[in-house]
Structures are given as C-alpha cells and as structure tokens.
C-alpha cells in the first residue's frame, strides 16, 4: 500500500528476510538427525539489502548520499551451506547454533514489525487521527 515509502519497504524486506531465514533454520532443526544433511543459512539482511539488481536507479556513491527509493525489489535470497564440522553420519547441524540464530531471527522480525508499526503511527498522527 505504502510502497513509495522507503522505510516501509525496508521493514517489509527485513520481515520477509526474517521469515525466510526462520524457515531455513526450522528445516535445519527438523533434519538435525538426518544422515548426510548439511546445515543451510542465509546471508544477513544487511548483505542482501546492498546487493541490488543492475538497473538505472540512482545510487549512493558517497557516504552522505541517500539511497534511491525507486523500483527496488527485495533481492533474491540465496542459500549458503554452512558448517564444515560434521558428525560421523555426515550431518553438520548443531542445535545450539541453530537456536541462537533463531533467537536472532526473531529479534530481527520483531524489530521490522516495530518499525512498520511506528511508521504507520506517524502516518496516522499526520492525518490527525
């Protein structure tokens, strides 16, 4: 609805990233005892946010520039395989690591939702309601 607002788009992208990462982590934990399964993960949101598709957008070329808000879609999220250390059955999932990462993911999701909510609050108060 408010796609023109960069901050809402940012919050949307961040929440989407958190949800996708959560599903990847849930998959790792479900397969914590599957022989030969390698743990997967996503690159961080900050890393994916700055990878932008090659378009004719304005770009920030100096530190002080603002990011162009035109036509940016959240980039495609690629999966990375993580964990060199494996159990004797070839599984590289560590439950502790996955739990820590999922707590991080939930915090990221909560933050994205809070940003979204407070932006809507600002819009609402600017409408005088």
């Amino acid at each position, binding site marked *: 609805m408010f796609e023109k607002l960069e901050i809402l788009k940012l919050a949307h992208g961040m929440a989407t990233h958190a*949800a996708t990462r959560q599903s990847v*982590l*849930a*998959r790792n934990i*479900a*397969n914590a*005892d*599957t*022989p030969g399964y390698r743990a997967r993960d996503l690159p961080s949101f900050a890393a994916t946010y700055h990878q932008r598709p090659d378009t004719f957008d304005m770009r920030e070329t100096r530190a002080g520039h603002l990011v162009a808000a035109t036509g940016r879609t959240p980039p495609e999220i690629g999966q990375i395989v993580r964990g060199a250390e494996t159990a004797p059955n070839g599984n590289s999932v560590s439950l502790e690591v996955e739990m820590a990462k999922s707590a991080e993911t939930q915090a990221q999701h909560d933050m994205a*939702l809070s940003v979204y909510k407070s932006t809507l609050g600002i819009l609402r108060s600017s409408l005088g309601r």
Partner: protein
Amino acid sequence: MSDLLKSLSVSASGMQAQSARLRHVSENIANADTPGYHRKTMSFEELVIRSDHTGQVKPGPVRLDQSDLTRIYDPGHPLADDSGHYDGSNVDLVVEIADAREAQRSYEANLRMFDQARQMTQGLLDLLRR
C-alpha cells in the same frame, strides 16, 4: 507469511519423526528381556515429493540390529539348551536411554521453532489491529 507457515509444517514433521523414534526406543526397552529380540533401529531421511525438496523429515525404514544376541546362563529356563544357555535380546539399556534423551532434545528444539514461528505469525496478524 508463507515461509512461516512452511516452517510450522517443517517443525511439525520433525516432531513427528522424533516421536516415531521415541516409540521404537520404548519398544526396545519394553522388550529388553524378551528372548531372541533384535533391537529396532531407524534413521531419518528428507521428504521429497515429486523431486521437490520440501525440507520436511520423515522416518526411514525400520531395521533390525543384527549384532549377536546375549547368551544368558539359566539352566532352569524353559528355552535353555543343553549347556544351560539361552538367547536373550541384544538391547543395551544405556544406549536406548541415551537415544531417548537425544530424541527428547531434538523434539524440544523442534517445538521451540514451532512456537517461535507461531509467535512471528501472531506478530504479523497484530499489525492489522490498532
């Protein structure tokens, strides 16, 4: 949101697989004193539907542990042979208890992930409320 719903079903499949494993463990423990009983072992595999990796886990086929049965000396036992021995089971209670603990730990981890995905979904739905 579809990612969160997917992770709910993935966690549910994990819990289901772990409880199947716990069932086999309890079958083994219940039959620890059954003569001639081979312990059941199972492994997990990834659920693939029409060459699509769903990420869900499913219990693999049940296999029997083919290691030697313990020879128990009890001349009064009805199954005892001429030397007074009979074949017990090859269940090792310590191994079974350790396996049960591992299943419980994995089950709880799946449950936590399920609950967390549920909370995140709830947070999204709360955005609709004022």
